[in-house]
């Protein structure tokens, strides 16, 4: 089987979806001839033409607002935001219209729009190119929020997001665009809303998503060398949230650590910690610990390593819940 990068898997997911459904269109800045700044839309223009691969004016609210109108017409638009930090101009269209239209129309008009956003840090980028913005969207009712961690999941989650009747914020961990996996790209895998257990273990449950999954896998390896077995949960989708998988694991381990790149305050880790506590306080042997970025604006590239959760910071948290 060929080794496929996440970038290639996403590209293939778009191609697959566009071949399957003529209503699927791709729009965004530089998605046509250039193939997107990360080449996720590479060569789609050649195959599908300018009617289905739209290089738009440089305006993010325009991209999402037009996608809404296109979805009302009956298309399935897949928008590309060039970088996380450039999503903010589209915020009003996302929050006030995209997220609410299904509800406002009493279910008569669902807007099957996917907004792909390369997010997170770790690539030494200039400012506004490394934001973890998931909590803005998990805090907005009506959106699904999906984030893959591997090439195979990137493929099947994007295919499923495009097929989904509801709007999906599809967060792509840009620092993992080039990780490889030996896989056959096929539309299978778990549905949106199901977490996957990346590693089984009995001592601690480690819950994470997107770019932090790889970091946590390394932490699991190191812990295993010390005789600690960690159960690693990759959420895959934050909304809807797979509480069942989380709770089943925590019941078994009695200890949980949540990891994400986003700053801890009001981060999604707080949500998970609270859910665990509310649902099964008595299973817990220790408080749930959150590991994340600091409550600072995303730091300059030369300092991002001290900000991003690394293996040591994850293992410190694991030690903390084990030794409570």
């Amino acid at each position, binding site marked *: 089987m060929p080794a496929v990068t996440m970038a290639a898997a996403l590209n293939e997911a778009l191609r697959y979806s566009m071949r399957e459904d003529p209503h699927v269109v791709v729009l965004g800045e530089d998605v046509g001839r250039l193939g997107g700044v990360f080449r996720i839309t590479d060569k789609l223009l050649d195959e599908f033409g300018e009617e289905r691969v739209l290089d738009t004016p440089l305006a993010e*609210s325009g991209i999402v607002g037009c996608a809404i*109108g296109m979805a009302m017409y009956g298309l399935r638009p897949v928008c590309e935001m060039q970088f996380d930090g450039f999503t903010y101009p589209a915020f009003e269209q996302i929050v*006030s219209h995209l997220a609410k239209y299904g509800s406002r129309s*009493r279910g008569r008009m669902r807007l099957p729009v996917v907004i792909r956003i390369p997010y997170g840090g770790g690539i030494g980028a200039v400012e506004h190119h490394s934001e973890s913005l998931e909590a803005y969207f998990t805090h907005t009712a009506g959106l699904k929020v999906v984030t893959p961690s591997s090439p195979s999941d990137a493929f099947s989650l994007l295919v499923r997001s495009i097929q989904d009747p509801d709007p999906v914020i599809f967060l792509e961990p840009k620092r993992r665009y080039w990780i490889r996996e030996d896989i056959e790209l096929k539309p299978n895998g778990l549905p949106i809303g199901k977490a996957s257990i990346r590693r089984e273990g009995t001592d601690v449950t480690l819950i994470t998503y997107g770019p932090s999954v790889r970091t946590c896998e390394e932490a699991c390896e190191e812990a295993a060398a010390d005789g600690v077995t960690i159960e690693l949960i990759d959420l895959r989708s934050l909304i809807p949230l797979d509480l069942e998988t989380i709770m089943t694991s925590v019941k078994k381990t009695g200890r949980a650590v949540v990891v994400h790149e986003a700053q801890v305050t009001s981060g999604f880790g707080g949500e998970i910690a609270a859910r665990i506590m509310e649902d099964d306080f008595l299973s817990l042997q220790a408080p749930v610990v959150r590991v994340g970025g600091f409550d600072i604006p995303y730091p300059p590239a030369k300092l991002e390593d001290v900000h991003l959760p690394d293996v040591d910071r994850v293992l410190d948290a694991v030690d903390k819940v084990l030794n409570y």
Partner: protein
Amino acid sequence: MSGPRRGVVDPSSVPTETIELLKPDGTLVPDAEYEADLKKDDLLEIYRSMVLARRADSEATNLQRQGELGVYTPLLGQEAAQVGTAYALDEGDWIFPSYREMAMALMRKIDPVDILHMFRGTWHGGMWDPKEHRFALLSVPIATQCLHAAGFGIAAKLDGAKTVALGCFGDGATSEGDFHEGLNFAGVWHAPVVFLCQNNQYAISVPVAKQTAAPTLAVRALGYGFPGVRVDGNDVLACYAVAKEAVRRAREGNGPTLIEAITFRRGPHSTADDVTRYRSDEELKHWEALDPIARFTKYLENEEILTDEFKEAVEAEAKELSAHIRAEMVGAAPRPSHELFEFVYSEPSEILRREEWLLHEELAGREDAE
């Protein structure tokens, strides 16, 4: 030196003329370029639409004053701009309204009750099916619907369809970024979109002179590479003629038009507003004298198109509509609370199901306590 230097685009060269076909006294102004080629039945239907809209509008204002609606945004004075423009559309064309386009909604056979439920607080956006009426839900955030109209038009164009999208907004909206982005996107694709700016002179209290230094709002279309036109928004025939030309252009693949309909909002921005703080009685009187329905009525009477019989029939229909609105709105029950969870997603999530159950228990507990 007179005039701008070479290479300079100068605002002073922008035409400020307003297209007018009916004088305020109801006499027809001959125009070689714009024509309202309407048959007698069309003219009567336009009359009917304006009268019904005015009655539904005043009933809504009354209902708000009596506490039946939380708020209402009256359209009094803007009937011609709405009816004349929308009459130029085909049935299959889509309308993307702001929150003041009840006259257009009525033309799309939307029960005004389904609009007023939004103002009553029964349901956000409205209660109708957008697809059935080709009428999008009300858009409260200003100018955002310009982009929905643009996207819809672009999709129609990509699909090779002949459908036209009409985006409606006010003068204040032209200051928003989404106005710019909507017109720009539509322009780039030469999309079949008509942008109707009802310039009713005030964005709540701020006059249009404070929204822009541009000599007109119509001229802003030039920046997007398509025509802009100013029309007397209280002249229903001119509004129709100008819109018809814009719709024709759009349908034939020649791209968007921005129409600036000069009109006046005779009521408040919303029923929560106090107009005495920002505008004079003289201004109101000036515009009352230009009333769009009175003007059109005079024309129809001069031409002996409008009979007493038809007038009475429309009056009776308006009365009936008014009574229907009142009967449906007064004391209307709220929707069952489980609906709050039902439509958020195509399938409620586990967490939503739980919350719905919690609310159900909470309400049952309250009932027991009573």
